[in-house]
């Protein structure tokens, strides 16, 4: 492995992210530097100004809610004012604002306004650092997964996040496709597969039609506000109310510290209950009892049946969503060849039972549900970078959603259907809809809805100078072309006169190239600063250690010097060196510290020699 360039697959989730690779042909998850598999997709600026990413950010998410960004995936590549952004704003405790052009979304954290890809980049950087610690080398190449419903703008924004994080995102692939890849489908079978993905914050159901090297996501459904955190909240509510009942109405929801501990404990208990039938919740000194009384403890046992009772409606909702998705796709549960469980919440026995009951079959559980998407991405990265004939499934770059035009009545007509392999081009003939119509407005849209307003507008232009004629007599040819780089060109031509207008649409994350370059420059500065601060810390610790050693040797050195005619001023000189070192430590001056280090070392060696001589048995000195 060491001779090939390392590569990674990343599942950049709404709540948690995972990084994986393929080593010696075996896909495997890369544990974080702290040993964890999951990295919470959270970024925070603590009250002391420190930037926190991952687990540590999660642990202060409630006590520092206004400066902790989570679920950035709900905002990435979205337009300011869109329904999704408005929905998110209702529940997000942190501040969001429109971008400079008023199109994209920015988040305000620690007094700084950041583009959403910048926030996601911080999570990706953390995963990249974990991978680099694992490989012991720099890592650049990555495949990143996104939900199947992400449009080009969201995919481009995810790519930009990767670029800011110093990654070369060689492919963006759909999460359900990635899960199916990890299970090895497509090599052995051709069937319909349902991916049932219940993550921390979102629930996605996808129906895939899998053939030889073809992974067609034929239907996607879900609920972007249903996930493991809702289950945690049910446990928290139960704990809060029972605590209030037993302690004179003390409302723990008013105490952020208590709430943070309750949240952590609820999640732990929930996870424990997937394997055990009962979990203990012990939270000593949870809340103040007021009036100088001792702090109050919480001691509870939560049974699996109680958790199932508390979350019954949530499980029911999952099944209802799955049912609707299948119905929309025209697929009966009995036609499904395989059901893949993805996401940590699918470990819950009640969820598995509900899936079993609905599909009438045992779901596949061969791969860890939290890891499966990242593993699929790693497999795809391996296939792209090191192709092996007849072994790999190489996914082709396809259009994620339908591309088309706004037509009369506010409807959307598809010109290039989703899952079309790029590069591609298609033409459609349209006619005028009014008598003597001399202009036609060409609005380019992307999406899955028949209603134009429900889809994303990519651009528009006006074809003017059309010859006056009865409606339907003028034929306008609209051509769509998508290059290998994903650039969409749309042109409209009056077939009789040859009059032509065109537009080029590039998927944009909301960040201009100039902004992206500025962010990349800033990141470079930060990296240098971090390196320096790490260096400062290392040199400071070393200097402090040497000073302590010298100080400890002073009495022995003084004793030795009393017996000698030489070096009477050694202690005085050492004091001078130590004083300068202390001043450098105090000032945090890296250069001064580096300069004084050698003198400290020399002094220590000298003192060791002198002290050794003093303590040596008589006759040996």
């Amino acid at each position: 492995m060491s001779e090939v360039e390392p590569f990674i697959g990343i599942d950049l989730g709404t709540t948690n992210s995972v990084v994986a690779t393929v080593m010696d042909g075996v896909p495997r998850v890369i544990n974080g530097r702290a040993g964890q598999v999951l990295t919470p997709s959270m970024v925070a600026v603590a009250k002391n100004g420190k930037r926190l990413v991952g687990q540590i950010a999660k642990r202060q998410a409630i006590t520092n809610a206004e400066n902790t960004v989570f679920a950035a995936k709900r905002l990435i590549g979205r337009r300011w004012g869109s329904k999704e952004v408005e929905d998110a704003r209702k529940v997000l405790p942190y501040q969001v604002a429109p971008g400079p052009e008023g199109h994209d979304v920015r988040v305000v954290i620690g007094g700084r306004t950041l583009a959403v890809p910048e926030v996601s980049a911080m999570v990706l950087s953390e995963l990249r650092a974990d991978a680099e610690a694992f490989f012991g080398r720099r890592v650049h190449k990555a495949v990143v997964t996104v939900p199947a419903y992400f449009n080009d703008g969201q995919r481009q924004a995810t790519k930009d996040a990767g670029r800011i994080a110093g990654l070369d995102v060689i492919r963006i692939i759909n999460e359900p496709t990635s899960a199916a890849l990890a299970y090895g489908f497509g090599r052995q079978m051709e069937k319909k597969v349902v991916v049932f993905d219940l993550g921390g914050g979102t629930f996605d159901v996808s129906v895939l039609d899998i053939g030889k090297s073809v992974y067609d996501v034929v239907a996607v459904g879900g609920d972007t506000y249903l996930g493991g955190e809702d289950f945690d909240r049910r446990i928290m509510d139960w704990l809060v109310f029972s605590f209030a009942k037993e302690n004179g109405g003390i409302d723990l929801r008013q105490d952020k510290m208590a709430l943070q501990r309750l949240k952590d404990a609820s999640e732990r208990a929930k996870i424990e209950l997937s394997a055990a039938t009962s979990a203990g919740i012990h939270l000593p000194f949870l809340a103040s009892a007021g009036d100088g009384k001792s702090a109050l403890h919480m001691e509870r046992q939560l049974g699996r049946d109680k958790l199932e009772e508390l979350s019954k409606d949530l499980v029911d909702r999952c099944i209802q969503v799955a049912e609707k998705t299948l119905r929309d796709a025209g697929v009966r549960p009995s036609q499904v060849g395989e059901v893949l469980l993805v996401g940590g919440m699918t470990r819950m026995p009640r969820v598995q039972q509900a899936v079993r009951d609905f599909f009438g079959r045992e779901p596949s559980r061969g791969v860890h549900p939290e890891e499966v998407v990242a593993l699929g991405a790693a497999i795809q990265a391996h296939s792209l970078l090191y192709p092996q004939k007849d072994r790999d499934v190489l996914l082709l770059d396809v259009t994620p959603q339908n591309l088309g035009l706004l037509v009369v009545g506010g409807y959307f007509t598809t010109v290039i259907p989703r899952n079309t392999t790029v590069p591609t081009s298609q033409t459609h003939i349209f006619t005028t809809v009014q008598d003597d119509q001399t202009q036609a407005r060409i609005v380019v849209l992307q999406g899955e809805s028949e209603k134009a307003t429900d889809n994303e507008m990519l651009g528009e232009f006006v074809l003017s100078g059309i010859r006056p004629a009865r409606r339907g007599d003028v034929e306008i040819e609209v051509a769509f072309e998508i290059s290998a780089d994903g650039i969409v060109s749309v042109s409209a031509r009056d077939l009789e006169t040859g009059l032509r207008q065109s537009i080029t649409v590039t998927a944009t994350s909301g960040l201009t190239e100039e902004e992206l370059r500025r962010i990349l420059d800033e990141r470079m500065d930060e990296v240098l600063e971090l390196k320096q601060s790490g260096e400062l810390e290392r040199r400071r610790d070393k200097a402090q250690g040497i000073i302590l050693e010298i100080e400890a040797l002073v009495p022995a050195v003084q004793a030795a010097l009393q017996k000698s005619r030489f070096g009477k001023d050694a202690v005085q000189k050492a004091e001078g060196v130590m004083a300068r070192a202390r001043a450098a430590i105090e000032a945090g001056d890296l250069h001064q510290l580096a300069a004084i280090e050698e003198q400290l070392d020399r002094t220590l060696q000298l003192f060791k020699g002198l002290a050794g001589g003093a303590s040596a048995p008589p006759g040996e000195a």
Partner: protein
Amino acid sequence: MPSLAELIDHGIKAFTRGLHGDAERYWREALEIDPGNARVKGYLSQLESATPAEAGPARRAAPPGAPAQAAPPGPARKAPPVVPAQEFAPSPWDDGPALQATIVLESEGGLDLSAISEKSDLRPLVPDPATTPAPRPAAPKTDVDVWMEGARELFALGDFSGSLEMIEKILKIDAGHVEARAYLRQNESTLVSMYESKLGSLANVPRLAIKPEEVMWLNLDHRAGFLLAQIDGSVNFEDLFALSGLPRLDTARILAQLLADGVIRGGAQ
């Protein structure tokens, strides 16, 4: 039963209030607990040698052995000078007797001041009635004045927590009190440094030093309980400061206390 540290602290507070009897009693009680305590012995010897005039509230001397930090802090320099009853011009005599006499009296007689004054420019230092306003009656001291004075003295004695307590009282009443704010910063940074020095390297990862089931038997408040819950062997001290959500001083104080009580241990990086 108060602890040694509490008794020393009570003694210092009584001393600064001019309650020498109480101070002596506290320090003697402290000596009963720790007969060899050099700090307490130093305070007591200072107390015994102090004359009533020296020990009066207007000119309190810091006990010997007060911590090295007892040098006037930064903000003290900015403190307004103590206004005497009459506004005389400053005199070198205010600094106390010189080490060597500047004028040696003749053995047969004394210095004839009036004769000298006639022959020279030497004049008694008295306020000029034309330029100096009539002496104002001393305004009664407000609570803020008393607390500020206490804060200065406690700071000089090295009791930064006590000083901070006084400062917090002042800032509750007068949030914009300039000197109090300066003392607040100085006290806080000194205390933070003191507590952090007890923690060792902030890159160290603390761990629970007792069995988890024993935590219940400790006497902690909910904030210490929160911090203790975060100590799981995966976060270092610096991270704890970041995720505590508490002011740095409070976090440092709680962690230093947990360490001192043997509830946690510093651990390696």
